[in-house]
């Protein structure tokens, strides 16, 4: 996964995209790569996770070999115009960016092309070995990676159209670009992940690099322990324990029973995910990450990144 040059990390809202993106970034640095992390919405989650000050459009090196930036359409437009149209003065026209934003919102693909264009540009410049994008949620990613193609169909001529060709060459090369779909072991998140992988295959030529299941609860009982656990829940056994120890262990059984049920539910949803993925071709890399909820953000990223390093090595 980390051998690619451009990775989009996406998934349903709340599954931990930013955490996974930050952890992948750290894992890539640990592999000796120069990494650029890019946050797509200016929510600031990435800077909190990386424990750094607010990010800007210009990448900033926050630790050795790890740089980070935040995406901004207007800055992307300004950069695009000055680099590719070689007309830096336009950026100075008052209100231009606002008007452009407005039009770009209406015309399919324009905004996405600017954003994706900036990412591809960073890949092409080669200042980094890998660009990892903390992308928008599932609903937008297909439109984003397919934008150059969409735009080409919509605007058959013009310089922007020309520009989309080299972007497509990067995006549609599965050696270079991949989408990483993050999910949790919840029904809706799994459904969205499967729908997204299918949409990527049917609507785009961009490859899904991997599926990452985040917050997988650990196994509670081994198979033989399971049998003992169910025996312990029998009335006769319970009353024997009360007789011998002077105390019931009902609450402990309930607590571990709840954890066991949550684990089983997670296993069920992961099985749904696996069988869904099996129907889609080719089979994708599937990584399971343990549940580190209730961890402080800094520990979360370091724990997840070492987990990822181990998984990916």
């Amino acid at each position: 996964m980390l051998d690619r040059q451009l990775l989009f990390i996406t998934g349903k809202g709340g599954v931990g995209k930013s955490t996974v993106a930050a952890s992948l970034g750290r894992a890539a640095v640990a592999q000796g790569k120069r990494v650029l992390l890019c946050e797509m919405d200016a929510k600031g989650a990435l800077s909190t996770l990386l424990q750094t000050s607010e990010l800007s459009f210009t990448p900033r090196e926050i630790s050795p070999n790890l740089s980070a930036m935040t995406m901004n359409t207007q800055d992307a437009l300004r950069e695009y115009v000055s680099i590719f149209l070689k007309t830096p003065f336009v950026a100075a026209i008052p209100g231009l960016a606002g008007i452009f934003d407005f039009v770009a919102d209406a015309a399919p693909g324009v905004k996405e092309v600017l954003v994706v264009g900036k990412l591809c540009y960073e890949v092409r410049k080669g200042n980094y070995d890998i660009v990892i994008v903390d992308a928008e949620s599932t609903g937008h990613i297909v439109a984003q990676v397919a934008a150059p193609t969409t735009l080409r169909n919509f605007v058959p001529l013009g310089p922007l159209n020309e520009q989309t060709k080299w972007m497509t060459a990067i995006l549609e090369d599965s050696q270079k670009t991949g989408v990483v779909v993050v999910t949790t072991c919840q029904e809706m998140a799994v459904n969205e992940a499967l729908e997204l992988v299918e949409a990527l295959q049917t609507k785009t030529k961009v490859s899904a690099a991997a599926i990452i299941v985040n917050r997988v609860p650990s196994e509670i009982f081994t198979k033989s322990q399971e049998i003992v656990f169910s025996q312990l829940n029998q009335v006769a056994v319970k009353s024997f324990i009360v007789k011998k120890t002077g105390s019931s262990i009902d609450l402990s059984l309930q607590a571990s029973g709840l954890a066991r049920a949550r684990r089983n539910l997670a296993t069920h949803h992961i099985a749904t995910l696996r069988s869904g993925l099996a129907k889609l071709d080719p089979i994708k890399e599937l990584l399971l990450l343990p549940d580190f909820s209730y961890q402080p953000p800094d520990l979360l990223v370091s724990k997840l990144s070492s987990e990822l390093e181990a998984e990916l090595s």
Partner: protein
Amino acid sequence: MTTVAELIQRDGLIIVCGSGGVGKTSISAALGVLAATQTNKRVLVLTVDPAKRLANALGLREFGNVEVQITSDLFKTSKTKLRGSLSAGMIDTKASWDDLISRHAPDEATRNSVLQNSLYKNLTERFVHSHDYIAIERLYQAHSSGAYDLIVVDTPPSRNALTILDAPKRMQDFFSSRLLKLLTANSQWQLLALAAKPFYEIADRLLGKGLLRDVAEFFTLFRTMEAGFVERAKKVEALLHDSKTSFVIVTTLEDAPLSEAEFLSAALKERKFSTHLAIANRVIPKELQGGALTEQAHVLNDARQNTEFISELADVLVNTDTSSDIDEANLSKLLTQTLETIQNYALATTQISEMQSTLLDRVAGFADHFAVAPMLESDIADINGLVTLGENLNIV
């Protein structure tokens, strides 16, 4: 009366918001079910994108804008019965937009041109946070139909929870924006504002000739609907501020959803919306909070190290075993291990619940009242699950 009972006693609207994945849809549905079983109200639950099993629990089969009345059949296996009536509906953004256009278009020709315009689809997907606007618009429509006493709406997942509150205002601002006027003035071939000229030149170079004109033409059409849209958006906005509208914030006791809920709560207060209730979802069940569980863990700790007890217990297990699946040879060892695992999870549960209880104080500050919903063993798959969740919320 509990705060939740109070909430569902009122007529009006309940808007359920919070970050993605915290169980908004289940909570909304449970509140609706509770209202329809505890009161004789006509209740509607509106949802954006329900999980399949939850949709089935509500009797929703297919996607669409149709509201479905839930028959008492669904309550067959439930101890609780319907007193009022319960309906459920999904919000289909595209269909709702088409409805809006059809309603506000001045004539058939405009309507058809807009609906068939290639830019239209893009507009409905992206402009002015259309998902958020549509959710409120649908809420308004259901409310003004007079068919329901209480409507519970589950808000769409958005990048920023605020967008739903600002959606009606944005819709109004959009029509009055200078940019829209500038753009549409051009397509009517009026005299170009000199200041805009370089922009058009650049835009043509950037986007290709003609695209800008297409966009302008579309918005010129769109502007013919201005009066209707703006008037409607104003009414929708007024409804949000109505004293009959209550907001409910749902969160789990984890870092990211809590921060989102905190942000949302502050924004609601600042805008003077009535934030009636904050719900902490997936909380360790009450009986597992506190010292009793910890004491049991200590009992387990002693018991599993007591070889005499273990061998006696092993005998009991063998005698009560009917399946003969049990591994008799290693039973003592296995029993010790299993008891240790149970002990560990008892202690882990205590730790989580202690952590949760410190976070609960934060949730209590998010709204006038707060309630707690327990962590469940499985996803909600039928009406009984919703009844139980509702009853759990209803405990003081």
